[in-house]
């Protein structure tokens, strides 16, 4: 058990150091005594014998040291000694210790959080086997470049491609769960039988859809999501074969998907896509084009390049099919088909924001490292002499370096831990209070690689710059330093220059962040103050869809009846139906417009106008101002002439310089007999797309004229708090049909808030980062200016003695800081000029070189820096010449 003996020995050396030392002492003394005795026996005088023994033995202290070295625990003992020393030093330098800790902790924490967020959302593979081979197939056509794929193209891609194993079509929709006490709206997806194979996911139990379950004759079967099976069906192990009622139709459960299978996101049930290949395959002029979404799984080892080439080939092949039927109209003659990795498609919206935040937080890290370097260099100045003394007293250079290294570690280690704690808390908080921007995305998991990277980077900085004094001490001549004894700060000019440069860099980078934050803040304000065109207060909105939807007439009747019910609610002042909800970003709903009586324009060159169906009460309910003419009223019915209300943008863009009232327009594809719609009124513009989108020409038609209404929102203007009306609405709708549920219930103000959420989130984060940056940079400036003032105390003393007034001293100090600021502003503006172009896509209402931001941010920075310099400046002014000169 030799190793056990060794271990015992080492532990004894470490923990019973006092007795080990005593024994060593005694042992050596014993030896010396014997030697003395022997010397006396050999005939020496006692005094002579003693010194001879010592001569033979050598210096006892040195011998002791050698014996201690033999114990092999020297490193550890020294380490603890250094540790104690370092802690004592840091207690003395509280400001440094605190600033360094905060700097490191915050930067490690912030970086880890943001990069973890980016990693979880952008990079971490989707939880499907071989998810990197799953592509989203998007088709683009038309000037608005909307991603719309058709069933016709799906069939063609499936058969003509040479690179996909599986091609699948699906269509997210909703269904009412009926026959239960609490009917609810479910997110479902109709999928082709190939869907699960394309996603390569095995069901948890049961099976997924079979090929013969596709098509119009498909039996009603359903595959459940894990969450639905667990939460709604209590994880029923015998669920297979049982039926659940959707829209009053029984669906046999054939499978349950495993946890984590969440595509399309939020889907609770998958059911067969009822697509009739025979009728939907041919491209015909008079059929409706069914819109589907397409995913495909690439064969193994198909490169992105090959995929691109293949998609181009398919684009040409499929595009060629359309002119045969739509020769005159050029319908889909600009079709293009592209394949993007599914992950990229799912996270596309957040990508630019996350990239920007990652960049910003990276800059914070940079500042933090620079700041840390600066603080440590400040300390180095005062350490130089101490280290020289240690070297002079016989400390080995290696030993000195080890000591300084220990100090750096003492500084860095708790900061690293604090940083990890901050990141951990931030990630937890983000997951717990999920900002609405992140709701559609998977939970954030802390990324250990990022943690290691940021921690390593900051540690490296701490060690590198902490070591600077030791390294230069190992180089310098001891005598030089000691001779310059009078000067407490002997690092001299070059160190001062390095520190100034570091501060300029720090300030410059902060300015870049400040400008970025300023631009985003201005965009946010511009967005928040966008003219909406109607008053959003006191509006309750919700949806409901008819259980077991039937014919157009049936649906129209359903919506009309529900609207009538809702109007009866005591809290309701008025209520309306609209096919398209403001602040919602959905499909293109535009069509081409030809004004009757104008020169006929070829179809593809006609102006486009958005097409919205409303009930007659819509304008009154939303309080959309009427500009001229009238809005819909009791005169408009399916018997009366086709009437349309347009917005101001329509009037000014499509009928410039004309009185729009009474003009007729035709709308949509040319048919033999196009209904002319007569403009009866012009209303104010409603900003109804995403908040930043431009206002487009819009035409409103009334469902009171018997138009087919496919679905939409109810809007109720309430007396008092709109949320108070929710219960009543629910009761009314349930009253009408007890299987009926309402969903997407929100006040209009909430919708408006949500529309701003991504910008608010970005602004909040980048604002925090800019704040941190400024704080760090200010601390850096303060440190450097204090250092410079302290270094020049003697000089200032002489100047004052020679008759300099306080104002002169102040000017000298402030002038020096001003120089730093000017240098920083020049570099910062340059950096901002180069970098802000990357946030252009995130800006609204300001350009990326917005003049006021580029002026205000530097001014703000300069002011902050000047405030930070006040302390050192005051100290400089108060220098008493007598003390200053005597001091050295």
């Amino acid at each position, binding site marked *: 058990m030799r190793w056990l003996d060794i271990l015992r020995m080492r532990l004894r050396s470490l923990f019973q150091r006092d007795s080990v030392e005593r*024994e060593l002492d*005694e042992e050596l003394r014993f030896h010396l005594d014997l030697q003395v005795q022997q010397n006396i026996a050999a005939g020496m005088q006692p005094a002579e014998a003693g010194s001879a023994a010592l001569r033979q033995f050598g210096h006892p202290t040195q011998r002791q040291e050698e014996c201690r070295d*033999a114990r092999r625990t020297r490193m550890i003992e020294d380490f603890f000694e250094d540790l104690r020393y370092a802690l004592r030093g840091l207690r003395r330098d509280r400001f440094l210790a605190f600033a360094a800790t905060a700097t490191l902790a915050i930067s490690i924490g912030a970086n880890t959080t943001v990069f973890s967020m980016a990693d979880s959302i952008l990079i971490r593979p989707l939880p499907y086997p071989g998810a990197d081979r799953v592509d989203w197939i998007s088709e683009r056509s038309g000037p608005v470049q909307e991603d719309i794929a058709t069933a016709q193209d799906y069939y063609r891609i499936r058969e003509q491609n040479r690179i996909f194993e599986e091609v699948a079509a699906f269509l997210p929709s909703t269904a009412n769960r009926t026959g239960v006490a609490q009917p609810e709206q479910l997110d479902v997806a109709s999928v082709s039988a190939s869907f699960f194979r394309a996603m390569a996911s095995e069901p948890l139990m049961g099976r997924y859809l079979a090929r013969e379950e596709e098509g119009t004759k498909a039996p009603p079967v359903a595959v459940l999501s894990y969450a639905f099976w667990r939460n709604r069906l209590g994880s029923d192990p015998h669920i297979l074969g049982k039926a659940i009622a959707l829209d009053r139709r029984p669906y046999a459960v054939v499978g349950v998907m495993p946890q984590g299978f969440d595509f399309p996101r939020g889907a609770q049930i998958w059911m067969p896509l009822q697509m009739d290949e025979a009728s939907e395959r041919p491209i015909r002029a008079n059929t409706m084009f069914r819109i589907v979404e397409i995913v495909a799984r690439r064969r193994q080892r198909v490169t992105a390049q090959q995929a691109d080439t293949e998609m181009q080939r398919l684009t040409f092949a499929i595009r060629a099919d359309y002119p045969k039927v739509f020769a005159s109209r050029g319908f889909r003659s600009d079709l293009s088909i592209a394949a993007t990795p599914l992950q990229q498609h799912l996270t596309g919206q957040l990508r630019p924001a996350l990239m920007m935040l990652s960049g910003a937080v990276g800059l914070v890290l940079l500042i933090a490292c620079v700041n840390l370097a600066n603080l440590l260099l400040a300390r180095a100045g005062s350490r130089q002499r101490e280290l020289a003394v240690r070297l002079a007293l016989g400390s080995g250079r290696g030993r000195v370096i080890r000591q300084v290294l220990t100090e750096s570690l003492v500084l860095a280690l708790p900061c690293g831990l604090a940083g990890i704690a901050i990141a951990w808390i931030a990630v937890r908080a983000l997951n717990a209070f999920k900002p609405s921007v992140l709701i559609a995305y998977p939970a954030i998991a802390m990324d250990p690689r990022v943690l290691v990277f940021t921690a390593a980077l900051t540690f490296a900085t701490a060690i590198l710059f902490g070591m600077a004094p030791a390294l230069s001490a190992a180089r310098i001549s001891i005598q030089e330093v000691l001779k310059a004894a009078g000067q407490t700060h002997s690092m001299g000019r070059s160190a001062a220059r390095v520190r100034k440069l570091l501060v300029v860099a720090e300030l410059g980078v902060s300015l870049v962040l400040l400008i970025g934050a300023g631009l985003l803040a201005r965009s946010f304000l511009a967005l928040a103050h966008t003219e909406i065109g109607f008053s959003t207060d006191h509006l309750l909105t919700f949806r409901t869809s008819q259980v077991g939807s039937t014919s157009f007439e049936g649906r129209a009747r359903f919506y009309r009846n529900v609207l009538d019910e809702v109007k009866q609610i005591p809290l309701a002042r008025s209520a309306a139906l609209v096919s398209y909800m403001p602040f919602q970003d959905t499909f293109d709903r535009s069509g081409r417009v030809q004004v009757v009586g104008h020169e006929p324009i070829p179809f593809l060159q006609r102006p486009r106008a958005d097409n919205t169906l409303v009930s007659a009460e819509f304008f009154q309910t939303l309080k959309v101002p009427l500009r001229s003419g009238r809005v819909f009223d009791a005169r408009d019915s399916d018997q009366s002439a086709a009437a349309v209300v347009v917005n101001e943008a329509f009037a000014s863009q499509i009928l410039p310089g004309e009185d729009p009232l009474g003009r007729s327009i035709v709308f949509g594809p040319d048919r033999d007999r196009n209904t002319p719609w007569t403009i009866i009124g012009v209303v104010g513009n409603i900003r109804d797309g995403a908040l930043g989108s431009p206002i487009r020409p819009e035409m409103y038609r009334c469902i009171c004229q018997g138009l087919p209404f496919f679905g939409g929102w109810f809007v109720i203007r309430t007396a008092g708090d709109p949320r108070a009306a929710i219960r009543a609405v629910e009761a009314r709708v349930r009253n009408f049909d007890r299987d009926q549920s309402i969903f997407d219930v929100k006040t209009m103000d909430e919708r408006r808030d949500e529309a701003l959420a991504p910008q608010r989130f970005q602004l909040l984060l980048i604002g925090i980062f800019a704040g941190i940056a400024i704080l760090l940079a200010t601390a850096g400036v303060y440190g450097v200016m204090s250092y410079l003032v302290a270094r020049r105390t003697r000089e200032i003393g002489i100047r004052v003695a020679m008759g300099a007034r306080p104002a002169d001293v102040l000017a000298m100090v402030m002038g020096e800081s001003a120089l730093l600021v000017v240098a920083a502003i020049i570099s910062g503006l340059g950096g901002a000029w180069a970098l802000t172009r990357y946030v252009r896509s995130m800006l609204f209402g300001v350009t990326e070189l917005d003049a006021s931001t580029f002026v205000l941010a530097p001014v703000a920075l300069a002011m902050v820096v000047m405030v930070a310099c006040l302390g050192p400046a005051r100290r400089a002014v108060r220098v008493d010449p007598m003390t200053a000169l005597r001091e050295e």
Partner: protein
Amino acid sequence: MSRPTDLVQGTLDLLILKTLALEPMHGWAIAQRIQQLSNEVLQVQQGSLYPALHRLEQQAWIRAEWGESDNNRRAKYYSLTRAGRRQLEHETDSWERLSGAISAIVRA
């Protein structure tokens, strides 16, 4: 008489182990014994003796115990451990190989 020869680097360990193989003894005695056994040819540098002893102790090849010396003083006695005995055999072997090889060359 010529000056006592300084010890070849690394042989001190072997000598200490060999000396202790006879009986436990304290540092002073070890130095004396080596000098005696080598017919006064080898003189242990007193300075290097104790670091060597402590090193061997840390390797667990020798063990130290406090005992009474001849003149009734407390002294630290070193003795060989089992591992030390093995180490002695090992070092003896390699010493014999080394010295054999050197003699072969010198005599050639």
